[in-house]
Structure formats: structure tokens, C-alpha cells
């Protein structure tokens, strides 16, 4: 009696199953598991209905929409299975399936039976997921790995630049735990990278050399054709000489280089001419200068202070200065471009733009094996020289891209070679005169001060020092102590927690082995330190801690809350403060956690999070996959593309970091644009390349993600806009209602008939939708994109749409019709209307979508059925805050699911 009572309770709990509880009770005298009950129900009741009503189109013979019931799992559902069953439930509920004209149709009761079974199965899955909830062990992404090494060694250099490229998850995220494995190839790279880092940044004794200084007056820079490297070297100075020279020149008249830098034209540069393309040819917008270090520093930072002034363009445009170190002889830079700076200072009073470029020198070992054939500079000196490239990267439609022969040293060099340059001098004067007449801006170059700082200015730079003197003084015992100390502190930083004696001893045993096999102490230590950097506690977040070690570290160190927090909000390792709090088990205290989250979001490192999340949520990676066809968009070039992507990131960052309402992402009357984008969008002009908040006038349609160049371009094919891609993007990213993938046998949107080729894309899409195989799905996605038809394939406004015949490439124009009817029946006039509808009627769906996406990012996995209650409560917090993204972040961090301990922790 007792048994069946329990069984009854169980069944009642399974909503909707009560209808046939009696039958089931008969069969369950032995108290089967819930799984078994559901399974039995499926095979006895659900399966027959499905087979009869759905099998013809979704079975062994035919697999419409890629679905076959005979192979669908009905128990132990994976997240993938859940998604399939969920769409089946929706199709049944909405009577989309079986199609009206299909026979036989299930009865209403049968429909309900299936739906109830699905609901009960889902509830069962949700319970299991909740019971097994844990924070996954997860490998660092490539970006996180690089940030971690950079903070560990205090050097912003591209440690990970040679790692094989890594894929994104199905939903577009790089942090997906399931995706991030370690292959042998990657492990090999991790070891090579670790060794190089240890070699460069762990200092054995000695002192860090002084910084060096160079001052280059641009009027003195000469070009000597035929000489390797070409340009003359700047004057090396020590600190005293530098300050003396600076003082001396501060009083006098400013002397500028005769050569001023003009802006770049719009559109791609003339790549047809190899002459123009060669790196050592000076162009109108660009000037080189060379300098040398007096000794080869393996790693450090170049600090560049440019003294510059501007002649503003007639339209008020300012020159934009970009400096870059050219990678010529084994130097590596994370960003060879030190940055950009709008120059507005008058010629009377030049301004100083400062840039920092960290570098390291990794000699090409392969090249060293062979003789060097260079006629000029001997090898060592070449190794120590760097080329600075200075450019005006403002764009002006009237600018001309050409080589400039000025500024060459006519007296030296080879006469034969010089003749070529003299020949172009006349052309150059014509071009220059034309640009002056058109009133383009010009950049005036006065001088550049350069500091070369070994190991750089970062607080962590030069951190890892081994007391070599003490180590060798009393070889053996002392060197072992020194090694152990260094190893201990590196392990703590690398493991991001306290390290137990057992762990340290185990690592020391490797050191001892190396020494016993005949390695010197420093060699043995370097190898052991490198080992730390490929071990799992370094490479993974929430790597397991051995049972016997757990009592010796705090619970929060064990559960690695600090790391999970910092890799979420900083894409990097926790700082001292987070580690200290975790060591004292203080971090998870709600008040302290809230304070830390708010501190972390204010830290500049949080911009890594906001940028990465924006890029992955909005799938900006797809921007790279689009090749804009210059044939149709002559004004488009890479710089404009970069500006577009930067705009989207800047918009998200402003809304997150300025604590604004997330709904402004969709609807806003202000945009972040620079001079070029403002022109592209037809907005009132702004000056310079810096992004500025600008109010959109009523007569323009801009503001919000849907009106941004990056989004509109990446949902095109480089020639034509594509309403389907645009619709899918809106559904996936803004509404989290992704359409199913296209079934395998459906013809793509292309046809050979000549009539078809002349249709506008909207007409083609409408035709496509009439094909019954496509109709159901496309009716759901196309209308969203059609509302954006007033934007061309690079996001510019248009009233006429370009139609390109794919066979003949004949172009014609058709008037744009952006009116559409959404699947829910709303009449939409145009994109403004769509934006208004989204923000007024779909705001909850939109903010739920952000919640889902940010959870996916934060948890390093997509939320599953077990997380639904949490998603709801997080969204509630988000809503009551007035949709502040910072509140969303905090609610996620404070949720049980984010705080779940790893599977191995706290189970002893």
C-alpha cells in the first residue's frame, strides 16, 4: 500500500499524466524510477500516435526539416534532444503540425497527451540538471590565456600569437567549456610559449639596464635609396642629454619637416601598383624614421612622444596621427600600432601625442642557421634597429595616394636609383597642389622623443627575479632554496590560489630530477617553471584540487570563485585583493561580492569583458567573413569597416559602463561615430577619428544596433543586402528565438531563369517563400529583415536597391520597399517602425535574450532546463533595476548556478 501511495504522488507530480495514472499504477508494482515510467508511457502511448500521424514525413522514408521520430531519443534527454522536443511541442500547440492538409490528423486529446508527456519529461530533466549542477572545469580561451601571461609577466606582448586559431561555439561563444579541449598540438604550443616567456621574463641576477632615449627631428630624416632599410637613424641620447636637448629646443622657433602628411583617399588603396605597395616607398600620408637600441633588449616597451601640429581641412577635418613600429627583424608586438590621435594644435603651438608599444625580440632561430646575405648592416646592428612609421590616417575624398620623392637625400646614394625618384617629382607636385587646392587637412611633423624601456613600465614588469648571487654562492643547498622560493611564488600566481606543501614538493621533485640528471640549477628551474605554465591548474579554471590538499586551502580557493569571477568580468586572472578575499572565504559573502563586482566593473580590465561579450553576443566575428565587393562600393575600405565594428563595440560599452538602460541598445537617438562614419551615415559632421556621442536629427534613420554599419554589412553578402540573414540575426541575437537550420534538400536562393535574375531581392525572397518546403520557416524570419531594406550591403541609406544579375553582372535599380508584416500580424512600415515595435512590444523578449546570452557567456555553457527558474529570477532583478546591465551582471554572479561549486569540490 505504501509503495503505490508513493507511486501515486509521483505521478500526480507529473503534471498532466494523471489522466492515465490508473493504467500506469497497475504496471508499477515494483516502484520503477520516474525515468522508467516516462519511458513506458512513451513506448505504449506516445510512440504509436507519433508513428501514425507524423511518421510519413518524419521517419525512415522522409525526413522533413531533418527530423525523424524513429531516431529521436525519448529518455535521458540531452540539451540537443530537449531543443528538438521543445520545437515539437511548439508545433503541436500552435497547430503548425501536422500540416492542415495532412492525413491522418491527431485528435485534440492526442495532441494534449504528447504535450503533457513532453512537459513531464522536461520537468524530470530539469530536476536532474539541478541536482547535478556544478561549475565546469574549463580551459582558458586563447584571449584569456594571453591576458593571464601578460599579467603574470607584466608585458603586453602577443604570447599566444602562434596558437592555432580556435573555433566558437554553436551560439557564438569562445568560452564554451565543452569546446575548449587541449590537443597535442596545443599542448606543444603551450610548452613552447611557456619556455619563451620564462626565458624572456625570469631574470637571473644582474640588474635591469637603464632606459634609452632617442630624439628625431623630422627635418633631419633622410632616405638613401639602395641602402638596406633606407632611412637614417635617429640620435641616441642618455637621459641627461635628452633633457638638455629638450630644454634647448623648447625656447626656440619650431622647425617642421618640409614634408607634411596628407590624408588617405576613401576606398581601397590602389593595390594594382606594386610600386605604390612597397613598404619602403614614402607616400603622401606617411613617413618613416629609424632608430636603434644600444644593446638588444629581449623585452620592453617603446614610448613615443610625437610633437605634431595640424592644418585643418577646409571642412574642419583634422589629421589623424597613427604610429606603428614595423616588424622587421624578429620583434613581436601585440599591437604594432601604438594608437591614433586626432591632431588639432596650431602650427604656432604643437601638441604632443603619446603612445606606448610593448615589444619583445624573438630571434628567428631558423634564419640563424644559415648565412645572412645582407650586404649592408651587420647582423647584430640590424637586430637592434626599429622602424617607426608615422601616418595621417584621416580620410578625404579629395586625397591622392601616391609615392612622394621628397625628403630623400639627393647627395648620397646611388645615382641610377635616384633617377627614378626624380622622375616622379613633377607628378608629385601636381598631386600636392591639387590636394592643397581642394583644402584637405595636413599633418605637420616637428619631432619625436622615444624612450626604450627594458621590461617596460607595467607594474608587474621585471617581477620574476632569481637571486642568482645567493644561488651560486653556496651551490647545492642554497640554489635549491632559491629555486624553491621562486617556484612557490610563481605557482601561487599561476594557480591563482594558495599552493599546498604537497603540490610544491611534487613540483620540486621535477627540479631535483633535472639537477640529478646533470642540469645546472638555472636550467632546471626554468624548465620547472615552464612546467607550471602547462599544468592544468594554470590552463584551466576550476581545475581539480586533490582530496588530501583540499583541507589546506580555503573553500573559496577550492571552488575558485575568484577566478570564475575574474575571467567573467576581466577576461583575465584575479588580482591580489580577490585572491586575499578568497583565501579568507570572504568573497562569497553577498555584501562583499556585490562590492567586488562593482569594483571590478569600474576597473579598466572590465572593458575586455564588455568588448568580448559585445563581439560574441552580436557575432561580430561574422564581419570578417564578408568580402565587400569594391566594384559596387568604391568608397568602402578596411578602415571604414574597422570603424563600423568599433562603433558597435563602443555603443555596448557606453551602455554598460555608463549604467544606462539596455533598451537603448535597440532604440536611441544618439550614436557613437567619428568623422568618417558620420559622413557614411549622412549625419552632421564631427571632427576627427575619435568616437563621439552625436544626436541623430529627426530626418535621419540611425541609432540602435539595427541601424549600425557593422550589423547591416555582416548580414549582407558583400554586394547585396540580405533580408534573410538580417532576419535570422534579429531572431537569434536580439530575440533569442533562433529558426531551425534549413532542411538538407531545399534549393538555395538562386535560379538560372533569366526572369528570376532581374527580380529585386525582396521579390526573390517572396518567390522563395512560396515554395512550400520553405514557407513555414521563412515566414518567421524574412519579414524582420525586409524592414531594413533601406540599408544597402554596407549599411548606407538608400531609396533605390541595386539588383545584380549573377550571370551577366548587369546592374539595375529597383525602388526599395521596406514595408512588411511580421509573423504575429503587425504591419511594419520601415525600420524606424520596427525599432519602435521591438522596444515597445518585445522589450521583455529582448531583455530575456540578453539575459540568456550573458548567462551563456558567464557560465561557459548554454543554460539548460535546470536553469530556467534562475533565468527568470535574474531577469526579474534586471527588470527592476531599469534594465541596467551592471545589475544583470550582479544578479548572474549572485545566482546559485554561477556559484555552484565544481564537481570535485566539497564532496569529502
Amino acid at each position, binding site marked *: 500500500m505504501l509503495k503505490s501511495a508513493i507511486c501515486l504522488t509521483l505521478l500526480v507530480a507529473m503534471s498532466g499524466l494523471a489522466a492515465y495514472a490508473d493504467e500506469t499504477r497497475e504496471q508499477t508494482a515494483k516502484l520503477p524510477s520516474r525515468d522508467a515510467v516516462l519511458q513506458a508511457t512513451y513506448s505504449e502511448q506516445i510512440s504509436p500516435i507519433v508513428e501514425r500521424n507524423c511518421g510519413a514525413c518524419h521517419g525512415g522514408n522522409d525526413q522533413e526539416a531533418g527530423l525523424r521520430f524513429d531516431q529521436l531519443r525519448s529518455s535521458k534527454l540531452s540539451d540537443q534532444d530537449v531543443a528538438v522536443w521543445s520545437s515539437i511541442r511548439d508545433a503541436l500547440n500552435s497547430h503548425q503540425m501536422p500540416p492542415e492538409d495532412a492525413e491522418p490528423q491527431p485528435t485534440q486529446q492526442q495532441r494534449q497527451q504528447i504535450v503533457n508527456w513532453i512537459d513531464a519529461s522536461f520537468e524530470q530533466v530539469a530536476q536532474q540538471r539541478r541536482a*547535478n549542477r*556544478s561549475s*565546469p*572545469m574549463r*580551459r582558458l580561451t586563447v584571449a584569456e590565456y594571453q591576458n593571464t601571461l601578460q599579467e603574470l609577466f607584466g608585458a603586453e606582448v602577443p604570447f599566444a600569437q*602562434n596558437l*592555432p*586559431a*580556435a*573555433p*566558437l*561555439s*554553436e551560439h*557564438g561563444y569562445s568560452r564554451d*567549456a*565543452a569546446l575548449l*579541449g*587541449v*590537443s*597535442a*598540438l*596545443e*599542448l*606543444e604550443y603551450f*610548452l613552447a610559449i611557456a619556455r619563451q616567456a620564462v626565458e624572456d621574463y625570469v631574470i637571473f641576477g644582474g640588474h635591469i639596464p637603464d632606459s634609452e632615449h632617442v630624439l628625431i627631428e623630422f627635418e633631419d630624416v633622410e632616405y638613401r635609396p639602395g641602402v638596406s632599410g633606407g632611412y637614417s637613424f635617429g640620435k641616441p641620447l642618455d637621459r641627461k642629454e635628452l633633457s638638455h636637448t629638450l630644454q634647448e629646443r623648447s625656447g626656440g622657433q619650431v622647425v617642421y619637416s618640409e614634408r607634411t602628411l596628407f590624408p588617405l583617399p576613401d576606398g581601397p588603396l590602389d*593595390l594594382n601598383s*606594386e610600386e605604390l605597395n612597397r613598404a619602403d616607398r614614402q607616400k603622401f600620408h606617411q613617413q618613416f624614421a629609424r632608430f636603434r637600441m644600444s644593446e638588444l633588449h629581449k623585452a620592453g616597451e617603446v614610448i613615443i612622444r610625437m610633437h605634431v601640429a595640424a592644418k585643418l581641412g577646409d571642412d574642419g577635418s583634422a589629421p589623424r596621427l597613427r604610429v606603428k613600429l614595423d616588424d622587421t627583424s624578429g620583434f613581436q608586438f601585440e599591437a604594432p600600432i601604438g594608437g591614433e590621435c586626432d591632431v588639432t594644435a596650431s602650427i604656432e603651438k604643437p601638441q604632443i601625442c603619446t603612445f606606448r608599444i610593448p615589444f619583445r625580440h624573438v630571434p628567428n632561430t*631558423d*634564419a640563424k*642557421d*644559415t*648565412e645572412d*646575405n645582407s650586404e649592408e648592416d651587420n647582423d647584430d646592428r640590424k637586430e637592434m634597429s626599429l622602424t617607426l612609421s608615422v601616418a595621417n590616417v584621416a580620410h578625404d575624398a579629395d586625397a591622392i595616394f601616391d609615392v612622394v620623392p621628397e625628403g630623400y637625400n639627393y647627395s648620397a646614394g646611388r645615382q641610377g636609383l635616384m633617377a627614378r625618384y626624380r622622375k616622379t617629382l613633377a607628378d608629385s607636385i601636381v598631386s600636392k597642389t591639387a590636394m592643397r587646392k581642394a583644402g584637405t587637412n595636413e599633418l605637420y611633423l616637428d619631432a619625436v622623443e622615444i624612450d626604450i624601456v627594458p621590461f617596460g613600465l607595467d607594474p608587474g614588469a621585471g617581477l620574476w627575479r632569481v637571486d642568482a648571487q645567493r644561488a651560486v654562492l653556496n651551490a647545492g643547498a642554497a640554489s635549491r632554496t632559491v629555486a624553491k622560493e621562486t617556484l612557490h611564488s610563481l605557482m601561487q600566481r599561476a594557480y591563482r590560489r594558495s599552493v599546498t606543501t604537497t603540490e610544491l614538493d*611534487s613540483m620540486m621533485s621535477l627540479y631535483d*630530477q*633535472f639537477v640529478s*640528471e646533470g*642540469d645546472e640549477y638555472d636550467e632546471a628551474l626554468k*624548465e620547472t617553471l615552464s*612546467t607550471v605554465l*602547462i*599544468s*592544468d591548474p594554470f*590552463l*584551466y579554471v576550476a581545475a*581539480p584540487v*586533490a582530496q588530501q590538499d583540499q583541507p589546506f586551502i580555503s573553500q573559496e580557493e577550492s571552488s575558485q570563485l575568484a577566478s570564475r569571477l575574474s575571467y567573467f568580468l576581466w577576461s583575465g586572472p584575479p588580482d591580489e585583493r580577490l585572491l586575499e578575499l578568497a583565501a579568507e572565504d570572504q568573497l562569497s559573502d553577498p555584501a562583499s561580492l556585490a562590492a567586488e563586482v562593482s569594483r571590478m566593473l569600474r576597473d579598466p580590465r572590465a572593458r575586455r569583458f564588455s568588448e568580448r561579450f559585445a563581439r560574441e553576443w552580436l557575432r561580430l*566575428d561574422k564581419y570578417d*567573413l564578408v*568580402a565587400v*565587393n569594391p*566594384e559596387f562600393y568604391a568608397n568602402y575600405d578596411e578602415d571604414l569597416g574597422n570603424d563600423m565594428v568599433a562603433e558597435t563595440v563602443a555603443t555596448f560599452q557606453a551602455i554598460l559602463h555608463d549604467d544606462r538602460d539596455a533598451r537603448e541598445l535597440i532604440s536611441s537617438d544618439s550614436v557613437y561615430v567619428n568623422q568618417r562614419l558620420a559622413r557614411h551615415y549622412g549625419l552632421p559632421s564631427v571632427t576627427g577619428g575619435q568616437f563621439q556621442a552625436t544626436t541623430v536629427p529627426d530626418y535621419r534613420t540611425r541609432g540602435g544596433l539595427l541601424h549600425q554599419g557593422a550589423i547591416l554589412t555582416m548580414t549582407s553578402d558583400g554586394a547585396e543586402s540580405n533580408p534573410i540573414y538580417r532576419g535570422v540575426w534579429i531572431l537569434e541575437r536580439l530575440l533569442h528565438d533562433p529558426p531551425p*537550420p534549413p532542411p*538538407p534538400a531545399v534549393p538555395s536562393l538562386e535560379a538560372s531563369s533569366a526572369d528570376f535574375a532581374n527580380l529585386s531581392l525582396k521579390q526573390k525572397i517572396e518567390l522563395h517563400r512560396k515554395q512550400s518546403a520553405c514557407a513555414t520557416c521563412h515566414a518567421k524570419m524574412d519579414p524582420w529583415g525586409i524592414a531594413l531594406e533601406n540599408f544597402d550591403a554596407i549599411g548606407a541609406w538608400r531609396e533605390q536597391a541595386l539588383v545584380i544579375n549573377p*550571370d*551577366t*553582372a548587369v546592374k539595375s535599380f529597383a525602388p526599395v520597399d521596406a514595408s512588411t508584416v511580421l509573423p504575429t500580424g503587425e504591419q511594419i512600415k520601415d525600420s524606424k517602425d520596427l525599432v519602435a515595435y521591438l522596444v515597445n512590444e518585445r522589450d521583455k523578449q529582448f531583455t530575456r535574450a540578453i539575459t540568456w546570452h550573458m548567462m551563456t557567456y558567464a557560465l561557459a555553457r548554454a543554460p539548460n532546463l535546470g536553469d530556467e527558474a534562475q533565468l527568470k529570477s535574474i531577469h526579474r532583478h534586471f527588470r527592476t533595476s531599469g534594465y541596467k546591465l551592471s545589475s544583470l551582471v550582479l544578479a548572474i554572479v549572485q545566482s546559485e548556478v554561477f556559484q555552484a561549486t*565544481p*564537481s*570535485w569540490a566539497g564532496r569529502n
Partner: protein
Amino acid sequence: MTQSSRYPRRDVLQLGLAGMALPSFASLRAAPNTANTASTALTTKKPPVRLVTIFFPNGVSLPPDGHESFQDWNWFPHSPGSDYVMTNSLNPLSNLRSDLSILSGFSHPNLRSNITHSCSAQFLTGEDQSKGYRNSISYDQVFAEMIDGATRFSSVPLSTAGGTGSLGRPATLSVNRDGALIPAMSDPQQIFNRLFVVDSRGVTARSRSIARDRSILDQVSSRLSGLKNSLGTEDRGHLDSYLTATRTLEKQLGRANEWLNIPKPEVDPGLFDFDAQPTRELGTNYMRTMFDLIHMALLTDSTRVVTYQTAMENAGGRGNKLPYAAGLSLHHHQLSHSAARDNGGWERWAKYDQYLSERLSEFLTKMAATPDPLADGSLLDNTIVLYGCGTSKTHVGKNYPLVLAGGKNLGLKHGSFHRFENERPFNDLLLTLLQRAGVKTDSFGDSEATVDQILA
């Protein structure tokens, strides 16, 4: 030090063919499999099988029927069979007719409608990209895995751009079992050094370094073996992936150890143009040098698996300027995009197709003229060479232009143009080639059947 003192010429036997030297026979005979029981399956009785795959981007010029360039410059011959006529695009290969087949009508079903600039990363796998990047092992790596240990380098991926590129712009054709892109080498000097130049550190130092690597792997994996039982299923999966990686590396180190005492073949560096770059002036030399290096790598049995991507699928990469070397005024991406627009555009593009056919022809001719030092016949007779592209025209993912050459001793039959009317899965062809290479499998990716028409 001068070059001649470093590579004594008297030790380098000239074969009598320009640009080629025979490695010392001692080093060839000392292949480690004679001492290594693990690879006894590959003893000298079985002739070596080699697999070379060459990819070019952006498709080929296919002027529409009726266009003035259609007759002479359409890449595909106009009618199938053994008496087919090569158009100008393929004509440089005419002397090699009996050593090659032209194929049309192949494509990867997953990639027919979704063609992006990333297609070279799926050319040899066929994986679906509609939900973002996904990949699996490429067919060359399947073969490389099977013969692992037979040669010093299990495979040599090459490309003009070098590295892996990004997932949107891959710069390699080879993909490992985990779906990760395998970095390719691009610099002739670097390739030569890796294949033929002796590590300056000496045997003792290298042996010590291998021993250290092994201790390091031991250290990091032994930490984990003790932890496994305390983990949940998913986490255990992560540990397993890490442990598998350490074991695979261990195996590689073991392999490196076996090769440690076997000297690299001596090859005269003077035979290669290391200054060649993929530019207007030096582009032709660059491609020739790459093919010379592939030829030498095979001849010396340094590897049996080579992939080579001549350029990436976009306007940026290094290989894109190669058409300048052919005397054309546009880069590769522009050539393909402006064919229909300009007068003579199809012919202009086809001239580059012809130029590439010339490079292929030079390579195949040399392979055919070189006796295989390890087996009967020429090097070409024991090498399968697949040449082609993952699009027919730009961004059309069907009807790949393909040339299949060599492998006569491996059961391939040549001399015809085979046209398959209804697109066949390209993996059918890759499966067929894998089987010819000796891989015992009856499927590869989404393959459906073997291509019997090319079998003897």
C-alpha cells in the same frame, strides 16, 4: 662559413636532372622502421605511397556558353571521354595526359550553398559550416596517421600565407583529429631548414631536451591520474582530453628519439631559390621553389604527405599577388570578381588558370622523370596528386575544378575527362584516394560511394 664547405658537393650525387640531388643512400636505408617493430607493417616490401594535395582559391574562369571566350578559355574541356580536348586553361598539361584525369561534378554537399572565404579549411573535410566553424580530420591527416613513423615528418602542410590563418581566412588545408587547423610553413628557407638542415645543438643536447620534455609530460599527467575519480562526467572528459594530449606528445617524442641518430638527408641548398617571394618579380620562382621543395621532400622520403595552398580565399594574403607574376594587372581575388564585368575579363582570369597549370605541369613532369628510389616506376607513379579548388566560379560551391594525377602503381587509371552530371560528394573522391593509399576504411565524412571510374 661558405655554403660549399657546409654541404660538401662531392657528397651530393647529381642525378642528372636539373635542380635535384639525390640524398645519400645511407640515410635513406636507415629509416627507423627497420629497427622499430611498431611499424613493421611498413617494411620496404610494400612500396611507399605518397599523397600531395594542392589547393588554389577563388575558382576558375568559366565564361558562359556563347561568350567569345567560352570555346578556348573555359577551364573544363567541352566533352568527356578519353579523346577530350584541353582548352587553353589546361593545355600546359597536355604532355601529361596519360598521367592525369580531369574531373567535374564534385562538391561537398554541406558547402554547396554556404560558401564563404573560409572554404579551404573544409576542402579536405567537407564539414558543415552553417552553424559556425566546425571541423574534423582532413583526409591527408587520416593517411598521415596511418603511416605515422614511416618518415621523419608525418606530414608537411605548406601554404603561401603560412600559419593557420584565422577561421574566417584559413591559411592551411590540413586539419587534425580535433578539428584544429595545423599551421603551414611558407618560407622556402624555413621549409628547407626544417626538412634538411641539421639542428646545430648536436645529438646529445637534443636527446637531453627530449628526455626533459618527457619528464615534464610525466609530471603534469601524473598529477591528474590520481584526481580522476573525484570528478563529474564532464570534468572527467576534460581531464581525458588533456591526458590524451600528453600521451600523444609522449608518442611524438618517442618518435623524435628514434630519428635522433638518423642523419637528415644531405641536400644541396644551392638547388633552391631561397630569395623567392610571392611577388611580381619573384612569384614564379616562389611557386617553382615550393614545388621543388615538395619534390625533394618526397624524393628523400622525409615525408609522404604534403598539402599546399597557393593563396587564401581573400584579397589580403601573400599569395594573392601571384597573378602579377603571370604578367596580369589584377590580384587573384579581383581577377575572379571582375571577370564578368570587364571586356576580356574571362580570358584574363583564364590566363592565370593557365599559369597555374604551367606550374603544376612543371611539378608533375619532374615527378614523372624521377625514378622512385624506393620502388618501381617513377616518383609520380607512387604518388597521388590532387589539384583543385573548393569553388568553381567565385563563391559558387559546386562543380569543383579538379585534376587528379599520378598513382598509377596504386591502381589509378588516367587519360580521361570524367564529367559527373549530378553533383557527387567530393568526399567520395577523397575516400577513393584514401583507399588507394592503403587506408582500410569504407567511409570518409559524408562519402556515399567510391569513384570507380578512376580505378584501373
